């Protein structure tokens, strides 16, 4: 038994000698570069799943009609933010098909007329543990935090992080903290968390 082990060790030593000089730093570099590529290109693709909005809503068309963000994204009387408009709001104009865009037809026929709310994907929903007051941030322009969808005909793809379950565009805490710090606003936990 001992003999065998001795031999094994010998082999290892032998191999080491043989290998001296073979390959040099090249394999290391190959591994390094491969990992860097995988980490920066492959990994993000793996990490996020892609989703598209149920209805191709064009913010651009609506804005061209002279509507503002606040025309549909409104505050309630208690100062809370209604966020996305519901059917009731959309149907003020789209109770029936009024235009020629097929997306509108889809909305009217599959949602509005069936009384079903559209399951919109929200790019920047904060997790449940965040209390975000739109009212307190009213003085900022929407686009300072949100994707500038106002100019888009097709809503952007929604990326969902497979690990954390959040949208890729969900604002990270450090971003909130930085802006608060720059503006002299408290960064105490409960200013944003619930």
């Amino acid at each position, binding site marked *: 038994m001992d003999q065998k082990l001795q031999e094994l060790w010998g082999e290892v030593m032998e191999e080491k000698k043989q290998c001296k000089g*073979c390959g040099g730093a090249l394999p290391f570099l190959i591994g*390094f570069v491969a*990992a*860097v590529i995988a980490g920066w290109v492959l990994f993000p693709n793996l990490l996020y799943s892609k989703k598209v909005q149920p209805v191709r809503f064009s913010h651009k068309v609506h804005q061209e009609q002279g509507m503002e963000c606040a025309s549909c994204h409104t505050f309630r009387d208690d100062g809370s933010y209604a966020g996305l408009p519901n059917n009731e709001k959309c149907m003020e104009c789209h109770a029936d098909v009024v235009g020629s865009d097929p997306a509108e037809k889809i909305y009217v026929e599959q949602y509005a007329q069936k009384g079903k709310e559209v399951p919109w994907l929200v790019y920047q929903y904060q997790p449940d543990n965040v209390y975000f007051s739109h009212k307190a941030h009213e003085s900022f322009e929407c686009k300072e935090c949100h994707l500038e969808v106002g100019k888009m005909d097709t809503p952007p793809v929604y990326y969902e992080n497979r690990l*954390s379950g959040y949208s890729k565009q969900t604002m990270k805490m450090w971003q909130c903290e930085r802006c608060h710090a720059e503006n002299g606003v408290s960064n105490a936990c409960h200013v944003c968390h619930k």
Partner: protein
Amino acid sequence: MGLDRRGFVKIVVGGVAGTLFTPVIWKSLDDVSIWSQNWSWIPRLNKGEVKANAALSKLCPAGCAVKVKTVGGLPFAVVGNTANPMSQGGVCPVCAAGAQLMYSPARVKSPMKKVGEGKFEAIKWEDAEALLVEKLTALKGQNGKIAAICGDETGTAGEVISGLLSGLGNSGYYMMPGEKFVAEKGVKLMGGSGQPGFDIAGSDLVLMIGADALDSWGATVANQKAFAATRPTGAAATAKFVYAGPVLNHSAGVSDKFLPVPPQATAAFALGLANLLINDGAVSSASDFAEYKALAAKYTPEEVEKATGLKAETMKELAAMIKAAKSPVVIAGASFGQGGGALDFVAGASLNVLLGRVGSGMTLLPAAPKAVAGAAASEKDAASFLSEVATGKAAPGALLVYEANPAYALPQADEMAKALGNIAFKVSFSTYMDETAALCDLILPAPHSYERFDDALNPYGVAKSTYLAGKPVVKQPAMDCKDPVDVLLAAASKLGLSLGYDTYADVIKAKAKALGADFDALVAGGIWTGDAKGGSLNLGASALAKVAVPAADDKTLAVALMSNQAFGSATLATPPANLLVISDKELSGKDLLVQMNAATAKKIGVTAGAKVKLTGGKGEMKARVHLNEGVAPGTVGVLLGFGRSAWDEFTKGKGDNVYKILTVSDEAGTGLKVWAGSTVTVAKV
């Protein structure tokens, strides 16, 4: 060049090193920790507009006027209705848990038909209703064959059920025994009529004899608000509160004085007090004053001390306090909602007559107009009825149970459950799978309080006539249920009977109209109040002559039934959100803790924490001992509401049901079934 071991190692090392320069590790580490705040098996919050809608929350016996908060249309919390002059924004602990109760695991999810012992099968509503009609058709017109037990004292639903029975040629409409039933009997014994009420807000001294008015007696939230109004924080109190009863309960806890009175000595205590007051110069113009005075004279301080253990000075101090008060009121009642004798009520109420407070401190509410013409004029009690069923004196073929749980909440509960077994076809109209529903042949799920129309007239204890009504808060009930009254009205019409309405909402509208109230204002959170009526009462001396003070017994203990509103009621097991309110001095694991003072424990040879068996009548229950110096001597305090055999994982099998060991007796002179004076033996196991 082949890849040898060394080359491979180099690649791996290079890969690891390279990875450190990518976001893989750092981003994953971060995302995994973010994932830990977002675990899929933990529910997410609901989004949407938060609203508060007025509702009538009939989860507690008195009913709370509340506002149900919803988010995106889903109820999640209950707050008070500040516009309601009675509750003034207060909510009782049961109604505070009301939104979660909508999703209680104990809810009956759809109509169920019994298919075997303890086995049910979900059926369609049309089949269920057809079955109901079929059974009732068969028994129609045979008096005594159809009976109904109702556990809702305040709703107009009772009139519909009673009217339906009359229409079917039956007079078997029974009420679950409650405080109101006994009190009305008592009022009759005092030569009056109507439902008594007590004006706490208008009194400067409130003596509660037995009645736990600040926790679980009467319109509790209104009582609590009236109490609170007299105690402004940081300023002098404007009224005194005294609690005389077997246990230092929640009412006693905030009272200025607590007098431990064993449950069987309630009347003796009241008459002893009458004696002192009369000696102090109290007179009454009541016709039977002389008789009363002679009777009270027998209850000398010495006699009272023998019966209650209270010292003569203590009684004298109390008498002096009452004398000094400008507007005292005595609230007489059992320390829990039922089973007290009418004599105890009369003894306590007679003090109001003696003090000249009838019509002000103690009022009598006028009879309200009925919405259903055929409804029975007077009420019969379910305990007596089921006793007759047990002995075969009554033999109904069908029983309708509405908002009642006789299999659990009547004395000798096991016997009552057996009596129910003698009835061939039993229907339960219940929101929850309670003990009675579990015995029934057909369960027709009723909507939760926030899913239906309902009303509440004169909850027991209110000083003025009051009427509340509520409409559904949600668009759709959480379960496949139908309003029992709607079901019964539909059945009636199929049986060829017209009660004049199609839905319960119509009934309530008519009731409101009859009272002169505005239905729309009511369901928007309004209230209708009527006047209180005085009426002359005598002192009930002839009835009180029958009061007997049971001789003290070394072997048995008197049972003081304790109720804690948060723990639910006869018809509602402790709501899931209220479980936390149960303290470790009340329930330990699955063991109920019964309470007695150290001297009593020593006398019967048990120690704190000891496991004991309580035996009374034909039943027994298991518990453990908790020492509480606030329990009257010779008394064991037992909490109501435990020992559920149906319901859900949160309540089933926890503690034991005290109803099993209560013994029913006939009260001398009144013929009432009473069990407030039950005695039990307590032995170590």
